[in-house]
């Protein structure tokens, strides 16, 4: 019962929901960034799970996982640099203060 695909999917769902909540609810940009990483990890777990139980070829999901890791690293770098830039300009990393583009 433990070692089947659904268990992993539930874990991933849980992780994704936490990440989504973090993105939507936390006001600090750093926390938002961390939450995004959680969501990416949830996707990664999904890939690994499907690969383990369903895919004919054993390597495809792992390759995607590696890709996601690379993307996450790039995203973290760019995201952090944007946050630093925002901090320099606003003296704050609160999302609600970044309102320059209000219509």
């Amino acid at each position, binding site marked *: 019962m433990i070692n089947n695909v659904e268990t992993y999917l539930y874990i991933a769902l849980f992780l994704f929901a936490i990440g*989504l909540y973090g*993105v*939507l*609810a936390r006001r600090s940009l750093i926390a938002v960034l961390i939450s995004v990483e959680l969501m990416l990890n949830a996707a990664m777990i999904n890939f690994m799970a499907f690969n383990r139980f369903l895919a004919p070829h054993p390597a495809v999901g792992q390759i995607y996982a590696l890709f996601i890791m690379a993307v996450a690293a790039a995203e973290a770098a760019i995201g952090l640099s944007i946050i630093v830039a925002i901090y320099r300009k606003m003296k704050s990393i609160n*999302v*609600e203060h*970044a*309102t*320059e*583009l*209000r*219509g």
Partner: protein
Amino acid sequence: MSAWFSDLTLLGCFLCMVLPIASFGLIMIFTRNNHKLSLAISLLCSTIPLMIAWSLLYRYWDIAEPIVYNYDWILSDFIKIPFGFLLDPTSLLMLTIVATISWLVQIYSIGYMEGDPGFGNYYAFLSLFALSMLGVSISSGLLQLYICWELVGVSSYLLIGFWYEKFSASEAGKKAFVVTRFGDVGFFMGLAILTIFYGNLEIANINSAAVAQSMPPWLISTGALLIFCGVMGKSAQFPLHVWLPDAMEGPTPVSALLHSATMVAAGVFLIARIYPFFSASPEAMAVALALGTITLLLSSTIGMVATDIKQVWAYSTVSQLGFMIMGLAAGSYFAGYFHLTTHAGFKALLFLCSGVFIHHFGTNDFFVMAAKGGRKLIIPMVTITIAALALSGIFPFSGFFSKEAILGALYHHPNKIWFLMGLFGAFLTAYYTFRVIFVMLFPKNSAPEEKHGHDEPHEEHHGVPWVMSIPLLILATFTIILGFCQGYLERFLLGHTLHHEHNYLLLVSAVIAALSGIGLAWLDWGSKKAKCVGFISYVPALENFFKEKWYMDHFWRWFLNAFIYGTFSRLFTYNDRRVVDGGVDTVAFSTIGSGRLLSFLQTALLQLNLLFMVVVVAGVGLYLLMGR
């Protein structure tokens, strides 16, 4: 290419075109600021054409067949414009007149323009003028003639506006160019229509007798009338005469060369040039006769009240041009052309003499000149009197013969009214001419206060420099002897001598008209008891009318302001700003505006937006999943 050098005639024609333009280019590019060198170049490049012109005239005195040289200048599909030379009596005579007067004026200008900062430019412009006018004389095709004709307009523009710091001078230059352009557009339309319906516009071809038969009459008339528009512009015929009096803002030698002797005669020359074609259209001849007559009377009457000496001669030029056109339009090619020749001599002389007075006294007002002792300048005073006698048509001066010829032609016209008008014009001419002469010769003490002339200021000079008096003497000689050459010229131009029936009625009436004009002038201005007011002042309304130049200037000014600037220009500009541009801008701004309307959705609350996104994506996802 070797033909250019083996054939001396061709080489001569070629040099007549190349030398002046070379002079113009050299002076403008290199030697503008070196007055002596510029003068030398320009004189060299006008003396050679002078010699060429006279030797060509001598060599081809018994010319029977016209000599034509043609080279391709432009070969498009349908439009072919040759560049060439046509030498026949008409062009040879004009060539000689232009080269001679142009040379004399260049000599005279050495004295007149001395010390002017634009001396170099002046000679460059004179060279440009020489090029274009020589080109008009010997062009072989009408389109080539038109091109030179336009260049004449340009050089006239540059020379009138020579003292461009003066507002009136630059204004006059512009006016001259635009008004003549007005006529030239008609000319060009005529050429376009003739090209389209007929094709070959070589002068030798268009003058051939076959043309009159092969073309439909409407085409000849339309063509001739449109070409006459160009004549009206250049030769200052009513109603386009308004530019010529203003053109006197230019230096006086320029007025002598361009605006009396040669350039304005170009229109008359054009009619003479295509006379067989022109006379094939009775309508065009009638229009020309009527307009010539109106011009003659209009400008003579204005000449009676002008006080600026150059204005008097300017109006006199306009009237004499009208007179020439009357002669041509009355059917006598010789009379019109002969008057052109004599007029070129004596009118240039009149202007050059006036130039001496203006130069000497620094004023244009001949009352002031008289008061300052104008008659003490012996040479100019004698020569101006000779020229005035010629202008009034007194025996034995050249004007007598040519006027006689024109009046003869008018006399033979079936409608005698033109003849009477011509006589009246001759009377007025004599009157206004001798008004000037008598005022100058017999100054009254009641002369008006000295006022500052609007010509260029000059230091007080002593005596007349010889470079200025020599051309006067040469021209005076021409004025005296040219009349007696009538027979030779007739044989040269027409190939045979006209049969002169001595019509004493004609002779006597002409002499009486001239003498009574002079007599009236004597009574009004000359004799000791004269009141020094013109007889016209007894009718103040008329005098005012003449002084206001028949309100023609007002009319054109009104026309320009009301229609060109006031209506079309303003409406179109308004349309451009508001309708065309405004329409486009409205589209652009409404795009921006509609964006503004929806921009309230952009709250800048990042997480709220994300929430919306998540909800919508989840909703759609659920719908897709459950919908199955």
